[in-house]
Every structure is written in structure tokens, then in C-alpha cells.
């Protein structure tokens, strides 16, 4: 398994869908190759970072109008 092949298999490896023999060769390669070990670690870091990025929410005005809608909805519900 070459470095060029390893970089194509990272997600399959993380997802646990590589066949047993490929998993063994993949892990052996990572153990032997400092570059690919680094690459694998960087993919892990990328996934973690993407998962922690803070996002844009709705505007305060939109949230306010939703809270109004909630109170109306709730009042209507309790009265029916």
C-alpha cells in the first residue's frame, strides 16, 4: 500500500468499513510512515475542528418573532 493509496482510504478507515486485510496493511503503513501518520492525525484534527466551529445563528429579530409566535401558539393551545 503506497502513501498515495493511504490518503484515499482515511475515511473508510475511520468509518470501519475497510476489509480486515486492508485495515491491517493500512495500520502497518501508518506505523512505518511518519508522513502518513501525520496525515492521518491531520485528518482527525480537521474533523474535530470542523465539528467545533461556531456558526451563524438566526438574527435576534428573527428569534424575537419566533418567541412571539410561540406565545401565541401556546395561548391558543391552552384555550382550545
Amino acid at each position, binding site marked *: 500500500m503506497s502513501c498515495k493509496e493511504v490518503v484515499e482510504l482515511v*475515511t473508510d478507515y475511520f468509518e470501519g468499513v475497510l476489509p480486515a486485510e486492508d485495515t491491517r496493511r493500512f495500520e502497518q503503513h501508518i506505523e512505518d510512515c511518519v508522513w502518513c501518520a501525520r496525515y492521518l492525525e491531520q485528518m482527525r484534527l480537521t474533523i474535530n475542528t470542523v465539528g467545533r466551529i461556531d456558526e451563524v445563528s438566526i438574527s435576534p429579530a428573527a428569534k424575537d418573532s*419566533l418567541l412571539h409566535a*410561540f406565545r401565541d401558539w401556546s395561548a391558543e393551545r391552552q384555550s382550545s
Partner: protein
Amino acid sequence: MPTARAMVLPDAEVVAALKRGDDAAFAELVDAYSPGLMRMAQMFVRDRAVAEEVVQETWLAVLRGIDRFEGRSSLKTWIFRILINTAKTRARREGRSIPFSAVAHDDEPSVDPDRFLGPDGRFPGGWMLGPSEWQTPEDELLQGETRDAILEAIDRLPDTQRAVITMRDVEGFPPEEVTAALGISDGNQRVLLHRARSKVRAAIEAHLGAIEPNKFALEPS
């Protein structure tokens, strides 16, 4: 990151609070999920203002439909499904094609092929220009220009790849939710996810300038 009660309380309690008219509970739910809903909505309607309308419509649909929520899926999944349906309808009305029937192209390499050695040397397919260590601590990747580079890279992704990485890695949905929501096969979502992740990694690397020649590989044999 919001640590709202909505994210730690069991769904049944959140739903009960909404039915009781607990507006603090609703506000927390809106705070907890609206950022993710905005991002998802923008996969279908790129315009921010339109996406915001879609998110608002979604919350109203959640309230109208709350009695139909049976807890067969998680509340989060149920809300996101309503969002996806609402956004698809809106995109169709605006004449925007919905890209999710597209098949993943499997011919895009994860790393520029020029960075690997050719087939004839001592290490065929080995690194010629390898990744160097990222000197930036993990927490700092989320700040300033690196953060911008990551967001830009996600924005530049083809629609399908952006959809999958958003659902899987940003929102943390399991693969089966992604395949169901987007109507793609499991293999396809994995290919799209891999392409997307590889490009975001490459964008971070490019931003950090973290590439170094593999001197060992370049020595004449």
C-alpha cells in the same frame, strides 16, 4: 457552543415543556439548533435572508406538528427533517435545482498527485512533498484567519460534499441519517465525506504553509 438544557434534557421533557408553554425551553431549543439549521438551510438556498426564513418556517412547523412527534427518532433529527423538507420546497419554488441526486465523482484525488513520487523510483506513490507538522495548537485552528480559511473551504465545496460534511462533521449526524435525508447511498455519502474532509484538510495545510519536501525520497538511488 450553547450548552442549553435542550441538549442535555431527554427529548420527552423538552416536548412536554413546549406543550406546557414554557417559553424559556423554546428559546433554548431555538438557540441550540438554529445555527445548525441555518447551515443546513443554506445548502438548499444560498441566500442568508431566505435561509433565515426557512429556519423560522421550520420552527413554526415544529410547533404545529409537535403532537405528531412520537420519539421514534430523536427530536433533533425530527426537527432537521422538517428543515430539509421546508428548504427543498422553498428551493423548488425559487427554481433552484436540488443537487442531491448527483453521484459522487470518484476521480478527484484527495491530495494533489504531483506531491507523490512517480511509479519508477524507489518509493512509487510515496510522498515527495509531504505534510509537515502543524505548529498551531488545536484550539487556535478555530480562530482568526485559519477559521476563515476553513469556512471558505467548506463554502467552496460542491453542494453535495458541503451537505454531507455539514451533516456528518458539523452537526454530528450518523451516516444513516445523511443517506435518508439526502437520498444517496451509503457508499456515496462516504466518498463525498472523504472528498470534503480532504479538501478542508488541504485548505488548512495551505493556510499554514505546512508542506515539506521528503529529502530522503529525492536522493538519487
